């Protein structure tokens, strides 16, 4: 009876947890094994680090790697920086705060591809922005802004889509900061910025890190925003991974697997590094 009671929770975990673990193990295992195998022209598969040598020796790969790291970092940091003041402003309910909160969260309901389309449609040759610029006399003729080479469009899209997520994660912990604590700091002569640095940031650090990690992983692994609105002369890591598989025949899977492993590494270590960096910064500014 006792053994049955002890075992029950673990048996109940099987239907939900086992499929997830099986899927993740198979997918990660497949990526790792494919990255260390090589198929020669006659179709023979052997263990080899050739795929790693080929990929790590390509300039295009490193451009994609640093590009994705940059988009992930910028997307995560800007989203959080914009979400913080909003979360602080809406910390205490006031007439109209519910409406603003709902409006901020609205982009979460918009599909990424639709968001990309809306953006491209807005900045395109016939888009509202160009019509407005020409109509107001700021430009003589429409300007080409679609697929800009600096990836400003991709960063705007990342922030547009992820800032509400950051707000959602931060708002709970920002609201939980006690008024007594903030009032005590104010009574001790700490200004608005000081209260943010010394009280709010340290107390909401965990949520801040969670938001940064989630956004960084999503943005660094992005495919759709890049494919629709990104610069055409550079690939994101996800795009590069798919391209490697499509363009390289028998060796496609091995090359693509190396990119996949590097992207997983970037997501993991990039997210940890970003979270660690923020922790150090918050501690330093809180002194």
């Amino acid at each position, binding site marked *: 009876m006792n053994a049955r009671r002890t075992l*029950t929770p673990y048996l109940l975990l*099987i*239907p*939900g947890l086992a499929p997830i673990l099986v899927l993740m193990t198979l*997918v990660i295992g497949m*990526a790792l094994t494919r990255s260390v195998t090589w198929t020669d022209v006659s179709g023979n598969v052997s263990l080899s680090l050739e795929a790693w040598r080929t990929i790590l020796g390509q300039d295009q790969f490193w451009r994609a790697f640093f590009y994705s790291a940059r988009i992930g970092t910028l997307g995560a940091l800007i989203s959080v920086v914009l979400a913080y003041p909003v979360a602080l402003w809406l910390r205490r309910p006031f007439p109209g705060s519910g409406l603003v909160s709902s409006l901020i969260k609205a982009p979460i*309901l918009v599909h990424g591809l639709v968001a990309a389309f*809306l953006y491209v449609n807005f900045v395109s040759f016939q888009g509202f922005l160009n019509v407005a610029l020409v109509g107001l006399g700021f430009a003589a003729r429409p300007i080409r802004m679609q697929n800009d080479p600096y990836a400003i469009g991709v960063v705007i899209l990342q922030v547009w889509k992820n800032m509400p997520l950051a707000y959602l994660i931060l708002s709970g912990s920002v609201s939980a900061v006690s008024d007594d604590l903030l009032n005590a700091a104010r009574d001790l002569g700490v200004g608005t910025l000081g209260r943010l640095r010394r009280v709010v940031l340290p107390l909401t650090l965990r949520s801040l890190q969670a938001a940064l990690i989630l956004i960084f992983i999503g943005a660094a692994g992005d495919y759709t925003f890049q494919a629709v609105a990104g610069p055409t002369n550079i690939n994101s890591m996800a795009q590069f991974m798919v391209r490697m598989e499509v363009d390289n025949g028998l060796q496609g899977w091995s090359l693509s697997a190396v990119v996949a492993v590097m992207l997983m590494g970037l997501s993991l270590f990039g997210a940890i590094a970003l979270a660690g960096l923020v922790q150090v910064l918050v501690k330093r500014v809180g002194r």
Partner: protein
Amino acid sequence: MASPFPRAERWRNRLLILLALVVFFLALGLPFAMAVLWSLVDPSHPWAYPNVLPPVLSFRRWVEIWTTSGLQQALVNSYMVATTVAVSAILLALPTAYAFGRLEFRGKAVAQMLTLLPLAMPLFVLAMFYVAVLSRLGIYSRFLGIAIGHTFYFLPYAIRLLTVSFSGVRQDLIDAARDLGASRLTVFRHAYLPVLKPGLLAALIIVFILSIEEFAISYLVGAPDFTTVPTILFSYLGYNFIRPSAAAVSLILVVPNVLLMLIAERLLKSTGASAGSGKG
């Protein structure tokens, strides 16, 4: 009753609300209005520079997309996959959510963290090597491949939502029903079901929407034969950017899902309320 906010703060809030409305209009309202306009551009009267507005508006583009593109099949595919995924994910999630929500056991926190694993992985990596796994396992049915992939990938959402519902069931109600001699089924009907129902429906709707919207797995597993609404939209946004068609498909993808999501949000709020007040 006097307002708890000082006069200056009230004015500052009003100004900020106005600013938020302007930003919302520019970031969401206007782009959607443009999408609606583009979807109504008459095919024989293109909207081109220097026209500020479309010269002729009509529903011809909508009719054309509906009758000549693969949209009808894509809608059927999307909704069939999503229904299968929503039901399967909920059925698989229920026992696990019960364990997380109602039972205490060693390793619970670790198990809860493990359920979130898929969300910590770049989705395109997962989708790409999921294709390789399917091929290795000899699963060539695109429908089955996408349905299994979506079910496994969206399980964390179903588990999380149902865990909250299960933890909202009041123990004193369960104990009272048992003390009165109620059978297991009666206890479930009277103590569990009223609290679980809104969360269950919300989880069904949310997984359903997530599956309809999912692009990476549908695209990599389904291409080129099995199309869903997002893959059709992507084809309009690719190298041959067909803006009016993309506008129409965007609206088809967004509007029903937003309405469903609002229903889910309402249901989730009622879960919280019923759990908090002990209703049911």
